[in-house]
């Protein structure tokens, strides 16, 4: 179902040299020529309208739980010149409610049915609060059809959300509260199992938490075990984490080329799902595997179980099966800034790789004082002189100081993410992945100060930050790109895109990158550094850039 605009053929001035029978007369100038050949008279100006109706009809027919067999016999098009009205009548039959023609000032690009208006580029939103369905809904619509009324409600929801956020920013909590009630009422008229209804539901919930019960927000973060489980389901349900792991592994593998003692420092071990693939790749590398040390950082488990050590044992068993010398060390820390470099016990002779999957943004404080945790951590990373620092971060700007800016950014970002999740059919993976995302949303929207850890920043800001901290970018190379593209093909959901961005790779949904992977090396110091490391650190990495 491509954009209908591109398949329109002009009905004007069709030459009579086509091999049709002589009884075919040239259609009048404003009737579409292609459809006229098929026997339908539709004005070119009405084409988009008709196309929208047909697409909706198709959606209804696919999703309708009822028996459609009557359509085969009963649906007869008596008047080919009025295709639009006929499709309307079929739709009405399904919906039992009158359809309202779309107001002309709402621009739906390409005439496609929009499930999620918030995922459109914001220029197409119109601030038109007079667009409300005229006829009240007679019954709750069970079908997953996006009718004109629902589209209007969706747009209205987004508008109300933004207005509510703006009143929160101004401090007008009374207005915000009443807007929440309006939105909750509007939600009942919208399909909340997909599209804008679902995303709006989560954002309304987050806003109401912020307004009505801010003291309960901290407890929404969940236990360590819960977080690990949700992370695992997020890993299964969509390709973002797989992309992160495989891309980082490829960069680390290439950086470790030629070294026999290697040490990987993982800033967030979780279940250690990233490392089996690296262990296997190292086992098969030409020249034989190196001795691999893995230091896994993670939160301490509350019930006394040493979960880090358990993961380490599993990985060690795997490494033993494939004959890779392996040693594991777990570092339990509830915050990354609590980790001190001596805990990592880095040997100066080994090649070090630092792996940070969505961890660095948690170090960004809201106040830009000199000793912010990020600078401290980046400086001790630099002092380790790693061969590579693999950084994967959400490609979003959720750290703006103004609440409204943050809110609208998050709405746009997470709408795209939920859209991409629609492609996943596995349950309960999909539902639990949504809870994982919902926790992020809550943190971005409800929390402030030290509690807000989801301070996502876009790739350009990370580039500046890392370059100022003394790193230079390492291009990820074509192998990583090919692997990422292949991984996406396996996921077989149309819509995911891998893109290369100045040596970094991003994975996104349609035009919107959602996660970015990059590699970094220490910039060689021209003068001696004032730290415990040896004077005159020379960048010993001779790996050419794989482009």
């Amino acid at each position, binding site marked *: 179902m491509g954009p209908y605009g591109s398949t329109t053929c002009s009905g004007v001035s069709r030459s009579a040299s086509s091999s049709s029978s002589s009884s075919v007369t040239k259609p009048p100038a404003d009737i579409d020529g292609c459809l006229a050949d098929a026997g339908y008279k539709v004005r070119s100006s009405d084409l988009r309208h008709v196309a929208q109706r047909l697409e909706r009809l198709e959606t209804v027919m696919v999703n309708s739980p009822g028996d459609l067999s009557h359509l085969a016999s009963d649906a007869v098009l008596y008047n080919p010149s009025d295709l639009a009205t006929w499709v309307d009548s079929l739709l009405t039959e399904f919906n039992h409610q009158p359809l309202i023609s779309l107001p002309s000032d709402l621009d739906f690009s390409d005439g496609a049915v929009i499930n999620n208006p918030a995922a459109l580029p914001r220029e197409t939103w119109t601030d038109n609060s007079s667009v409300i369905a005229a006829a009240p809904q007679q019954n709750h619509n069970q079908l997953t059809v996006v009718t004109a009324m629902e589209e209007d409600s969706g747009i209205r929801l987004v508008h109300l959300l933004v207005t509510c956020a703006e009143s929160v920013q101004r401090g007008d909590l009374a207005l915000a509260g009443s807007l929440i009630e309006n939105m909750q009422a509007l939600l009942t008229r919208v399909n909340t199992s997909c599209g804008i209804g679902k995303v709006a539901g989560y954002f309304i919930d987050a806003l109401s938490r912020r307004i009505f019960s801010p003291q309960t927000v901290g407890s929404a973060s969940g236990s360590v*075990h819960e977080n*690990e*489980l949700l992370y*695992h*389901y997020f*890993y*299964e349900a969509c390709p973002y984490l*797989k992309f992160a792991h*495989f891309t980082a*592994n490829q960069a680390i593998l290439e950086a470790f080329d030629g070294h026999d003692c290697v040490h990987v420092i993982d800033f967030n071990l979780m*279940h*250690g*799902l990233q490392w*089996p*693939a690296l*262990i*296997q*790749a190292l*086992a*098969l590398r*030409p020249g*034989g595997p190196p001795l691999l040390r893995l230091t896994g950082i993670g939160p301490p488990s509350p019930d006394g179980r040493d*979960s880090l050590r*358990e*993961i380490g044992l*599993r*990985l060690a*068993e*795997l490494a033993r*099966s*494939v*004959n890779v010398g392996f040693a594991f060390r777990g570092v339990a820390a509830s915050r990354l800034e609590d980790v001190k470099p001596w805990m990592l016990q880095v040997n100066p002779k080994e090649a070090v790789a630092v792996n940070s999957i969505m961890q660095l943004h948690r170090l960004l404080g809201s106040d830009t004082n000199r000793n912010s945790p990020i600078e401290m951590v980046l400086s001790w990373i630099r002092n380790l002189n790693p061969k590579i620092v693999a950084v994967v971060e959400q490609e979003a700007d959720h750290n703006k100081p103004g609440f409204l800016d943050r809110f609208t950014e998050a709405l746009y970002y997470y709408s795209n993410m939920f859209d991409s999740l629609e*492609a*996943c*059919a*596995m349950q309960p*993976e999909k539902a639990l992945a949504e809870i994982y995302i919902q926790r992020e949303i809550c943190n971005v929207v409800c929390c402030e100060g030290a509690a807000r850890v989801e301070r996502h920043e876009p790739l350009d800001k990370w580039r500046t930050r890392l370059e100022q901290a003394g790193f230079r970018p390492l291009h990820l190379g074509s*192998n990583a790109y*090919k*692997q990422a593209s*292949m*991984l996406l*093909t*396996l*996921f*077989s*959901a*149309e819509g995911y895109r891998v893109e290369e961005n100045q040596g970094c790779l991003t994975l996104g949904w349609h035009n919107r990158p959602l996660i970015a992977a990059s590699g970094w090396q220490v910039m060689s110091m021209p003068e001696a550094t004032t730290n415990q490391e040896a004077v005159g650190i020379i960048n010993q990495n001779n790996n050419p850039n794989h482009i």
Partner: protein
Amino acid sequence: MDQNQNTSSRESKEKRSEFFINDHIDILVEILKRLDGPSLGVAACVCRLWSSFARNDSVWEHLCFRHVSSPPPSSVKPVVVALGGYKKLYMVCLRPVLSRLSDSDMVRRVWTRHEVQLSLSLFCVDYYERSGRLGGGGGGDASASSLMFLCNTVNV
């Protein structure tokens, strides 16, 4: 004249009945090595002898790397064996990956090194997840496997 014809036809019948494929295991193995996955599965049901050969991992090893443009290095075999064997690699990983990546007949195409490497990595992740489930370690109730997404039908 008639007697000659009768004896020659009797001789040819005897000659025909003397050839029994199960007596020529080397030929049998050579044939099995060239079958595709589903045919190997069918062959395993014919009789005990065929079953023992069709289940032999070396036949599946041939199947896995038959169409790779260059033969895999010798270090691959112990890794694959440690992770569950070639038959498992084929069934769990290679077959869905390759059918997903190619739109033409899978048997005749050449598999690239990248595709094989990616399959091996996915196989390893799957092994790791399976080992976690059996051990009852963290997330024991997670029945998800990272390769389950390969079972989804392709969106057309």
